[in-house]
């Protein structure tokens, strides 16, 4: 699965958790760009990504994601 496919899947997860069908996220999107992307939703997004891709993030990783792009890189490396 390449980054593009991962991004498509992640978009679905974001739309679902944040309950916003119009939302689109990109590699350079950061939390403050997106309405409702607060810590409460963040943990739900992380859990949903883990489930969808059958991967596990470390707590350290979760704390250090600066934008969606870094999240993508982490997913991609775990899937490799």
């Amino acid at each position, binding site marked *: 699965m390449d980054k593009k496919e991962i991004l498509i899947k992640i978009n679905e997860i974001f739309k*679902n958790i944040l309950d916003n069908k119009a939302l689109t996220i990109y590699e350079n999107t950061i939390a403050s760009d997106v309405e409702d992307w607060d*810590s409460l939703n963040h*943990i*739900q997004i992380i*859990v949903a990504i883990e489930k969808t891709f059958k991967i596990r993030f470390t707590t350290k990783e*979760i704390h250090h994601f600066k934008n969606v792009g870094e999240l993508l890189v982490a997913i991609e490396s775990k899937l490799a």
Partner: protein
Amino acid sequence: MLPSFSVLKKNLKNNVDSLKVIKIAILADTASQLVTQAIKGYGIENKVNFEIFEADYNQIDHQIFDPTSELYKFAPDFLIILKSTEHLTKHFYTLDRDKKENFAATQIEYIDVLYQTISQKLNCYILITNFIELNDSVFGNYASKVVSSFSYQIKRLNLNLMDYCQNRNKVYIIDVDSQITQLGYQQTFDPKMYFIADMVFNIDFLPYLAKNIYDIILAISGSFKKCIILDLDNTLWGGIIGDDGIDGIEIGNLGNGKIFSELQLWVKQLKQRGIIIAICSKNTEEIALEPFKTHPEMVLRLEDIAIFVANWKNKADNIRFIQTVLNIGMDSMVFIDDNPFERELVKKEIPEITVPSLPEDTAEYLIFLKSLNLFETASFTLDDEYRTVKYQKEAERSFLQNSFANMDDFLANLEMVSEVKPFLGFNIPRVSQLSQRSNQFNLRTIRYSEQELIEISTDSNYYTFSFSLVDKYGDNGLIAFVILNKIDESTLFIENWVMSCRVLKRGMEIFTLDYVVSNAKLNGFNKIVAEYIPTKKNTLVKEHYSSLGFELLPNNQYVLDLNIYKLGTQNFITRI
């Protein structure tokens, strides 16, 4: 299957205006936002609008000890206190050995202070979580022998908490420990969520917790199961009694018999705690009864079954029959059947009844049924047991009815006694209630308030009669009334005739008319006029007057000539 958390969360957007409102407050020592969403969403899923006050993070003490807090302003019906084992563990580890040894007792004292403080200001139910009895691997298994170990104290705390609740009838325990034992702590706790967000339950566990809390609240609010209706072949035993015969069905040591023996043992426990057991099976009755009478390894016996229905009719109709005999709500019954066709048919015909979708493998039946927590209850008292006896007697009557080929023999055997009284202060509330509630046996569907009945009872143009009925199985109470209005010196009009359907087909109608006629004659009347006003619900009594010998006039009007009417055609009921 429980709905997932994301389904519950989506429910939050639904319109809840038409739903029943229950006010709950949630206080937690951990982050409870998602728990709150799950409870709210689970309520909506089940047609209850939980209006929730969720305190800010870790405010249990603040909300309870500050008399001006939001909690007291909100005044909930239910207060839910979520205390986590994780935080308790942290606290425990800071204590010295003496305090550790008294830890459970100290915690109970603290909970008592909370309770006392709350009780001074609120009259709500309090639901509090118990603690997860997980070994903390400090002493390993040896912890059982060390009073100052966390494992020892947490088990004692749970036990003490149960003792504490015994005499406080507004305090209930949410048995989170048992839920987590069932699912496994590694499935319910996500260390990431805990260390990042201070959440002690992972997302997949939230629907389970929400259901559990919902179950308790609903049971306290009066909605709980009273009856389990069971199929026989491949549900209570393996195989088909009609084909395999009494020696061929699997129960006890034969084949997969253990599966069914253990299921029956559990059902028997339900019976002993007051759940009514009914059988509904497509079978020839005689053949279906045989294992209960003669199979040495059957656990359930006929005396455990309140009502036994085995025939070839449609199961939905049979369940309706069971419901009528027991006179309880469809929503208080559970139907267990291995056959998906029967389950679907019953679900479709009777949406209110609970019909679990049993797993395919019979070996999984019992663990599956237990996991559903179908029989949550908010009380267990002598009154409950008495109520069960009442239901069983009701059913016995219908058994007896089945055992008498001749209806007259059955009725003669019931030893029925009726007391007739005009409307008086003490019976007016019940007459009014009967007029409000009866839809089927209600000839003109007039609803009377107590005030109206008081006026009628003192008006000399009215004759009023109320009837009670006692039989050898118990007191049915006031079950019928007739109100007659004087039209002229020789004619009475039946303004309304109402009877409880519980006493249908017992000759009560004839007894009632006999009494009314003899009374009318004594007062010099020679004619009674009556009317049937049809409604959607009273077709039951469409032929009521004609079957009693009234002559049909146009427009659903009837007339009875009292000089022709023959009294005393039945003698099953004695008047006292």
